[in-house]
Each structure stands twice: as C-alpha cells, then as structure tokens.
C-alpha cells in the first residue's frame, strides 16, 4: 500500500510518542555521555565540567589499541561463527516439518531467557577440569585425563557464539522461510547437487540478509563484557570490560565515557564500510 507523504505538521502526530521516548531514553543519555567524555576527573569525587581532550589522549596508547583490536577481532569472529553455523541450520529448519520448526524455535527462545551470568558460569563448569566435558571424553577413551579448557580464547568464543546464535537464527528464519523452495529444485534439475545448490543459489540469494545478520551479531558481541571476564584471561578482555572497570571500579567516568564514545564511532564506521561495500557489490 502506498500512501501520500506527510504534508502538514499534524501529519507527524503519530511520531510524537516514539520520538519522545527515543529522545528521553537514548539521545539525552548519549549526549550526556559525550559531554562527560570531555570533563575533567575529580580524584576526590566524581568529575568537574570542563572541555579537555585528556581522556581521548590517554586512550591513544598501544595498550588500549591492542584491547580495541582484540574486541573487534573477537566480535567479528563471533559474528562469522554464528552465521556459518546458523545459515545451514536455519535453512534445514525452514524445510523441516512445522512441528519440528516450532520445537526448535521454542528451544532457541528459551536460551534467550538465560542471563549472560548463567551462560558464563554454565560454560565455566562445562569447561572445568573436575566436572567438565573432558571427563566424558576420558570415559569414552578419547582422552587420557581431564583438562581445564578455560580460561582460554576458545572458551570465550564458544560461550559468546552460544549466546548470540538464537538471535542469528531468529533474524535469518523469516528470510529463509520466504525463499522460494523451487529455486533449489531448479538448481538441482540444472545439474547442481543439493550442497552445490545451497552454495550457488541459497547463499547468494540471501546475501543482503546474511550481511545484515553479520552486522547485528557483530554489534551484539561487541557489547559483551561478562563472558570474557568469566571465561577468559586478562588478555581476552574486551574494551567493554575496561569501560566497566573504569566506570564502576575506578570511578573514572570521563575516561569510561571517552572509551564508550570511541567504541560507538569505530562500530558505526565499520558498519558504514560494510554497507558501502555491499552497495558496490550489488551495482557490479
């Protein structure tokens, strides 16, 4: 259905409420944070209003650079893992019987009800030496003795992928259900094996959806600060962990704000780059 563009000021009426909510709960806090990032820290108290670049200057060090680099690397890896796992899974799910689909979707939704803390401690138990999954492998005779799998990068990656996978599946699901099943049948009649038809038809036809999902999981993973602390070593801590540390334990709000603003800018920049690259690919 096509409707006329709003003409008068009153036509924008329905937008007042959502716009108001957005301003009060998003624009104002974010503006406050930007302002605070230029304030001076008061060691005896909180902060004093000022306009200095010290907080940003302090951030430009090798240490924080490495942390930022690691955070982006971790988020990208989680995003790729999630999409690589979720696309074939969701494709098979969307072709399954209605009942099977509902059961899987309910199971996935129930993962969403778990808090990050519970996911973190559950995985830290599963990865432990005394009660972890390696004990099972020992019982099966695959390993000689149980080992601790955390803290490690693998543990952080596994838990974060586990946490983000339901979102990934739920974002991909509608697009895959809408995909015309005769497309893969056509590919098969034209000589493509089922696996080949998946990679030459399903994946390319869903390119835009997959890129959008990658961006979503990437941003979601960038904000994670509990799992790296529970399951990782200090070198696996992300920028979000440091922001929390500065804001809550060091009471250095201006510096935490500066890091947060910087993180948002870097994220926006990367997303913009992806979108531009996607546009170019489409035009070609």
């Amino acid at each position, binding site marked *: 259905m096509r409707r006329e563009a709003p003409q008068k000021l009153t036509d924008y009426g329905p937008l007042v409420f959502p716009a108001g909510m957005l301003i009060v709960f998003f624009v104002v806090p974010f503006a406050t944070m930007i302002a605070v990032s230029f304030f001076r820290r008061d060691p005896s108290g909180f902060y004093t209003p000022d306009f200095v670049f010290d907080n940003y200057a302090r951030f430009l060090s090798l240490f924080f650079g490495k942390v930022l680099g690691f955070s982006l690397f971790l988020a990208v890896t989680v995003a790729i893992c999630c999409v690589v796992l979720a696309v074939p899974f969701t494709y098979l799910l969307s072709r399954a019987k209605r009942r099977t689909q509902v059961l899987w979707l309910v199971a996935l939704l129930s993962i969403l009800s778990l808090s990050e803390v519970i996911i973190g401690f559950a995985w830290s138990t599963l990865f432990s030496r005394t009660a972890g999954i390696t004990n099972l492998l020992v019982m099966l005779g695959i390993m000689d003795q149980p080992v601790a799998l955390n803290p490690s990068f693998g543990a952080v990656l596994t838990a974060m992928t586990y946490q983000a996978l339901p979102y990934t599946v739920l974002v991909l699901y509608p697009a895959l259900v809408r995909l*015309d099943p*005769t*497309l893969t*049948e*056509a*590919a*098969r*009649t*034209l*000589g*493509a*094996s*089922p696996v*080949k*038809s998946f990679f*030459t*038809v399903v994946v*390319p*036809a869903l*390119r835009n959806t997959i890129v959008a999902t990658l961006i979503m999981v990437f941003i979601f993973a960038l904000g994670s600060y509990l799992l790296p602390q529970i399951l990782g070593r200090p070198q696996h801590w992300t920028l979000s962990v440091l922001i929390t540390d500065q804001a809550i334990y060091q009471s250095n709000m201006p510096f935490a704000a500066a890091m947060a603003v910087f993180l948002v800018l870097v994220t926006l920049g990367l997303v913009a780059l992806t979108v531009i690259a996607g546009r170019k690919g489409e035009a070609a």
Partner: protein
Amino acid sequence: MSGLTLQNIVKQFGQFTAVKNVELTVPHGTFVCLLGPSGCGKTTLMRMVAGLDLPTSGAIKLDGKDITNVPTHKRDLGMVFQSLALFPHLTVGENIAYSLRIRGVGKEEQKKRVDELLSMIHLTGYADRPVAKLSGGQRQRVAIARALAISPKLFLLDEPLSALDAKLREAMQVELRQLQQRLGITTIVVTHDQREAMTMADTVVVMNSGEIRQAAAPVEIYRRPADTFVADFIGMTNLIDFSADGAGAHVLGAAIPGLSVPAGLKSGIISVRPEDVHLTAPGNAPVTGTVTFVRDLGGTIETFVEAAGKQIVAVSMPNARPDVSVGQSVGIQLNPDDCVVLKS
C-alpha cells in the same frame, strides 16, 4: 527402446495415493501433454520423472536405462517450473549459463552458448540485464532457454504458461511447439488447459484422480474419447443415455439406425459433440425438441434444445445459421458415425 518409459508407477503420500499404476511410453522426440484437473496427480508424475519425488513403486527408464533412483542433478534434464524459479541474484546470461557453469564448461564456450540461446528466444543483447527487469513473457523465454542450455535428453515443463495473459499464452504455445519440433527434443508438459494441450502435443495424456484415463493424439482424444470423464473434460459435449436391444440402439426415445453397440450392452452413455448435432425442421428427424436458449457468439451459435427431458447443445457456424428462436420446435438429427459409445 529410446525415449522415456514409466512402468507401473505408484506414488503415495501417507494414506493418499496420488498416482496409481501409471504405464506410459514417450517415444524419443515426441511432445506429450499431461492434462487433467488440479489434484489429478499430473504434477506429481512429472516431479517423479525429474527425480524431485521418488515413486513408492515402479520404474522410470530413459533410453532403456533405469533412472528411478538416479538423483535429479545426474539426470541431464531441463525443467521449467510454474513459478519459473529464475535465480534473482543472477543476470539473464548467468541464469542461462548456470547449468554450464555447474558442469565446469569454459567461460568462452558458456558465452557462445548463451548468445546462441538468446538469439533462439529472440532476446539477443539481454545477457547483462537483471531478471527482475524483464516482462512476464521474457522471463518465460529465459526460463526455457536456461532449461535447454545443456541440450537435455528430456525437457519438462510444469504449467509453464499459466502466469501469462491469454494472448501471450496462445503465442507462446505455438512458439514452444515450433521450438520443440526444431530441436527434436523429448518434451513433457503438465497443463490443465485443454486448448494448450491440443495445440502443442503429439500425444495428450488425460489424467484424473491419479490414473491415466486416455493417452492418444489430440484429434483422437476429441473425436473418440474413451470414457465420460475424457469426453466431458475435453471440449463441450452432449452425454446422452442410450438403451439397446437385439434390433438396434435407442437414443432420446428414437432408434438410431446404424449405431453399433458392443454385443451384450443393454444401456450406457454416448457422447455427441455439439457440432455434430444437426437441427432440422420438426418431422424431418427422428427426435423432436424445443429450443430453450440461443447463445449467438458471432463466430459460432450455440442452440440449447430440450428433448425427452434432456438438454442438448448444438453448435453451428454463422453461414449455416439455423433460423430458430426460443420456444420453437425443432428436429434433432444424429449421425451414427458421430456418436461415441463410452465406457461406463
């Protein structure tokens, strides 16, 4: 034997039998139409030939080789789907070249073949267009070209023209038939449109509720329908009860001399096409009836006559316009050669 042979094909979905004991031989290079109402099993039968569904029992043979369990992508066939199923992320040229690319054909050769096919479907120069920018008829042609890119052994089309408007559909029917004759490719088309089947096919296979009711040349199907379903489904017809004794057959309360009925048959149904019902002055024919309605369509005139409690339709051309009006009494002349005795 070269061509496609279906032996005793059965397909069940749970309790429901979609295809029942189908036997069919399609000689190499012929054009066969599977015709029937929706839900008659014709699409299921074609999907089994394509390998997209597996028969519950029975065998499918192509050029003498059993292909019943050969997966679809190894059957070397071309298929056009009802939805066309053109790949939205590829251009016209890439769509047509898909089967060649999958088979690892070189880029140069792909391009040559695509150009060849594009000129065949009168779309030269369209290779780089996205498929979304094409009209319905053009998309139809691209789907046909894509299916023919590898010169398949078998060309299958599932309701290929149903998305087109009436005029374009008629033109495409002729074009498709001419293309098939030029390429000499064994072709099976699924359709519910009897005009389409009559236009294109060498053999029309009429199906109903999972069974083949009659498989014959289009004119044969029309002139000599095997049973009441075929007679009723193909074109317009008059289905009239008859009774027979040793002396001859009686229709509408009058004897039809010369109508031969299988020995021992006491009663049954005959089919008479409306153009074979001749109206005469009352008294000049054995049966007399009353005109109830006249539908003058310009090209043809349909006259509805009630005789012996039965509605009979007669079709005549304008140059032989019967000078009748509603309520008038007319004679009905039936030629014994035009009456087909049907299997009950």
